């Protein structure tokens, strides 16, 4: 069948079972939008800024595991999308971003709304393509979806010049795709698996450090089985929260800069560290030399060989898909005799002692709303079952620490790039993917204003997101660092001339609530999640302005050099 490039794109998206395309039209994508208009399978979500289109597609992807799709025009459409693309790249979210491009004859002529999209996005994509001929379009899109979802997932950009979207050719969608240059390893090396099992069974102080790879490969159940068999404590990174049930006794919380005392101490003093789909980044292990000074054996499972031995020396590297490797480990362990539970008894006694420090305790106040209290109430009111999309800053860490995630794909945040403004569009993507689910956006007054225009999109599509704004009229994380390390010189970290968020929400047609007393927190949340279940509710919590995120490992310090709240008071 002979189709235009635009029609081919639609057919390819249908073949890939794409439900939603988040986008914004423009000159270079007029034919693509025309083709979108003439079909009903794929729903187009008109956002208010291209950055939000990519974040929303990303939120859709993170909450489902499917590939998210965004569609933007050439030039500024593409450059606006870059932050979204880089955000997805850092956290390995599977995306296909389709950008319009000026017609091939105009490329390189400094044409109106021309930008070298492939060049601009190259450092922050898994791969990208410029489609020069309409006959390459179908195969390129097939490759794009395959690359985005397989191996270590990531965003793939497909740049389509306007004349390619108009040109015609015979359409055939390839069933299979093979690329000689791309063959991700799936199963772990059997010899390494054996060595890892030996080490883990012999360890007296085993520790599991699990990251986003567990969630990406749908390995939460396998991880839980392994942790139980080994009787090992588990810490989940910021990207890995929900990969192991937070309510389980073996869960120690998050490691790293704002991790728990027990998780950081266990990371440091274990004798065998099993790292699963995590990358020992600077926010997790702090000072590398300090971390390396303590003798421990490290097993590192990752699908990306470049993540292994990048920052720390590893004794047993295992390249492979997390789920497959965990199944291999389980198979090997289950075939042998049961590990002796007595071997870890002393280790658990030590961990319970660390836990006894109750590092997440905070001083409750009857006068000032503590942000930690808001998150705890949010957890109670939603029975711990909401999808929580967070922005970036103090509120993000409080949400990570106090909303105890028991299941994967319920915690959406920008862990790697740390992009302020992701919260609302992430919540939108998640709400489209899970129409009946409770979706909360935990945000700050700085972050929310970076994509606040999306309140309009939420109105258009009647998205019943609950926005929990922890409003301290400061760029709180910046202020915290300035307080601690820059002589309390609060340079540029205050927020003046804030809008009345209640009126703002109302002007978009939503419900707005302002909460100023701790006693009103729970009531407001209940009202939002029950009375206004089907509406977007924007709750402006006026929180204690001086609250800081603790524990904290200051930059350049080691994991055991945490500042705990008690020491600060």
């Amino acid at each position, binding site marked *: 069948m002979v189709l235009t490039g635009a029609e081919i794109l639609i057919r390819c998206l249908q073949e890939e079972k794409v439900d939603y395309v988040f986008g914004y039209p423009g000159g270079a994508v007029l034919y693509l939008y025309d083709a979108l208009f003439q079909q009903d399978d794929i729903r187009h979500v008109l956002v208010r800024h291209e950055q939000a289109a990519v974040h929303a597609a990303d939120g859709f992807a993170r909450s489902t595991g499917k590939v998210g799709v965004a569609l933007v025009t050439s030039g500024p459409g593409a450059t606006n999308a870059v932050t979204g693309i880089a955000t997805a790249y850092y956290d390995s979210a599977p995306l296909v971003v389709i950008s319009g491009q000026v017609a091939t004859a105009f490329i390189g002529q400094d044409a109106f709304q021309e930008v070298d999209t492939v060049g601009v996005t*190259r450092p922050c994509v898994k791969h990208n393509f410029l489609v020069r001929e309409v006959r390459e379009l179908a195969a390129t899109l097939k490759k794009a979806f395959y*690359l985005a979802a397989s191996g270590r997932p990531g965003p793939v950009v497909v740049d389509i010049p306007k004349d390619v979207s108009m040109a015609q050719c015979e359409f055939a969608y390839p069933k299979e795709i093979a690329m000689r240059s791309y063959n991700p390893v799936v199963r772990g090396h059997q010899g390494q698996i054996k060595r890892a099992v030996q080490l883990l069974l012999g360890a007296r102080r085993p520790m599991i450090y699990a990251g986003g790879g567990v969630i990406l490969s749908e390995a939460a159940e396998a991880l839980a089985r392994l942790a139980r068999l080994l009787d090992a404590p588990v810490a989940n990174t910021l990207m890995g929260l929900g990969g192991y049930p937070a309510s389980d006794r073996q869960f120690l919380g998050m490691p790293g800069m704002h991790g728990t005392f027990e998780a950081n101490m266990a990371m440091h003093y274990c004798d065998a560290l099993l790292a699963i789909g995590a990358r020992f980044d600077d926010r997790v292990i702090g000072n590398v030399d300090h971390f390396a000074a303590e003798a421990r054996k490290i097993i590192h499972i990752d699908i990306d*060989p470049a993540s292994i031995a990048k920052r720390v020396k590893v004794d047993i590297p295992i390249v492979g898909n997390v789920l497959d490797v965990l199944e291999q480990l389980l198979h090997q362990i289950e075939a042998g005799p049961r590990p002796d539970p007595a071997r870890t008894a002393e280790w658990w006694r030590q961990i319970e002692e660390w836990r006894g420090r109750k590092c997440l305790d905070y001083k409750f106040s009857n006068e000032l709303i503590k942000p930690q209290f808001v998150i705890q109430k949010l957890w109670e009111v939603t029975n711990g079952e909401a999808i929580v999309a967070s922005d970036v800053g103090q509120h993000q860490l409080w949400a990570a620490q106090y909303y105890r995630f028991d299941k994967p794909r319920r915690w959406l945040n920008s862990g790697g790039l740390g992009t302020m403004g992701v919260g609302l569009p992430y919540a939108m993507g998640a709400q489209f993917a899970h129409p009946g689910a409770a979706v909360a956006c935990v945000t700050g007054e700085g972050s929310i204003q970076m994509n606040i225009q999306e309140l309009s999109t939420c109105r258009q599509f009647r998205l019943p997101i609950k926005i929990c704004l922890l409003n301290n009229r400061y760029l709180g994380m910046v202020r915290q660092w300035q307080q601690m390390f820059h002589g309390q010189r609060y340079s540029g970290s205050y927020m003046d001339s804030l809008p009345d968020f209640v009126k703002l929400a109302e002007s978009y047609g939503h419900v707005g609530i302002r909460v100023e007393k701790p006693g009103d927190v729970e009531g407001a949340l209940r009202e939002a999640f029950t009375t206004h279940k089907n509406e977007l509710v924007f709750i402006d919590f006026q929180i204690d302005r001086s609250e800081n995120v603790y524990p904290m490992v200051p930059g350049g310090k080691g994991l055991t050099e945490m500042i705990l709240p008690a020491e600060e008071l």
Partner: protein
Amino acid sequence: MRHVISLLIENESGALSRVSGLFSARGYNIESLTVAPTEDESMSRMTLVTAGSDEIIEQITKQLNKLIDVIKVTDLSEAAHIERELLLVKVRATGAAREEMKRIADIFRARIIDVTDASYVIELTGNQAKLNAFIAAVDPALLIETVRSGACGIARGERALKL
């Protein structure tokens, strides 16, 4: 330590910039880079000369392998290999220097490939050290310009980088 890395890459526009972009983005050292299509025109072969600790070289090879267009990567320095580079030099060739330059070219087994009343263009291939030695042997006052291709490398014996 200096390493010579060879790789096969899809012969597509932008492939070269993916490699050079990787080096600049991650702060890796790049001494020279040569690239040309192979006998199978769908592929290019690239020789990269870089320097770094073992950890950095390991990361470089892993990051190169991670690029979707890269088909195969090998660190030639891990085993016996041969390196060759091409040097073209334009020198003044008048008076006594005319004979002198001819003599130096002969000693290095270089070839004079262009002659005018006042100049020669001399072609020399060899490893980096030989090319450096040749340039050092020429009176700087006689050097008009030089151009070097960057190193090409191949493994000795049976070892080969191919599909």
